[in-house]
């Protein structure tokens, strides 16, 4: 099982979802991807769309920089 990281805090719509989707598509069963993202649309939609596409959101935690969060997603 492998753990991957992705920082989309500097991205804007639609590349926030696009980059997440491309990274998620590389995961094998059991692998995790930790996405660092900002509040607002990315925080609302990345966990939701990941769940809708059959991934499991293990946790959502606040990151060190104010206004950013870490979303841990597993295939």
């Amino acid at each position, binding site marked *: 099982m492998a753990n991957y990281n992705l920082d989309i805090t*500097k*991205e*804007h*719509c*639609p*590349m926030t*979802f*696009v980059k*997440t*989707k*491309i990274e998620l598509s590389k995961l094998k069963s059991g692998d995790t991807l930790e996405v660092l993202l900002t509040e607002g649309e990315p925080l609302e*939609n990345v966990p939701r*769309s990941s769940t*809708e*596409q059959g991934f499991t959101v293990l946790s959502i935690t606040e990151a060190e920089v104010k206004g950013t969060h870490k979303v841990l997603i597993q295939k």
Partner: protein
Amino acid sequence: MATTEIKLDPNTKKLSLIGFSGDFDKLVAVFTLATGAAAVGYEVNLFFTFWGLDGIKIKQGRSPVGKGFLPKVFGVFMGGLKSAPVSRLNFGGISPKIFRYLMRKNNVATLEELVEAAKVLGVNFYACEMAMHILGIQKSDLIPEVKDVLGVATFLKIADGGQTLFI
């Protein structure tokens, strides 16, 4: 004659876009919606017709693409993705350059990046048979990701049950 095998899955959310315009800003809208929707799990179908075909030509600059004299003239004047004008205040082609600069500066995906992302995400590209016939464009003039050349009836079948937008 369309050769695409049409698979309709009632459980998949679907967005179909008719790309009529070859304008820079409208192509940005097409590919922003397409990549965003594909990234959140939608099946996305892009149907390019008339000037929209300029956005999916292999030759992205001004080039005499097409069969016959008039199509070649159109090809030189209209060009492809790299020479797409903005729909308002184009200023002889200066504005698209300013837009590209602003998009890079503000870390927003450029038109070319959006097109590449659409390919990676498996967005379905289709081209309009009738418009290609008028403009003298062959399938070989278009990017290889174009799955098929279609007419209205086949496009409607593909788009059936989803959302469709004309841009």
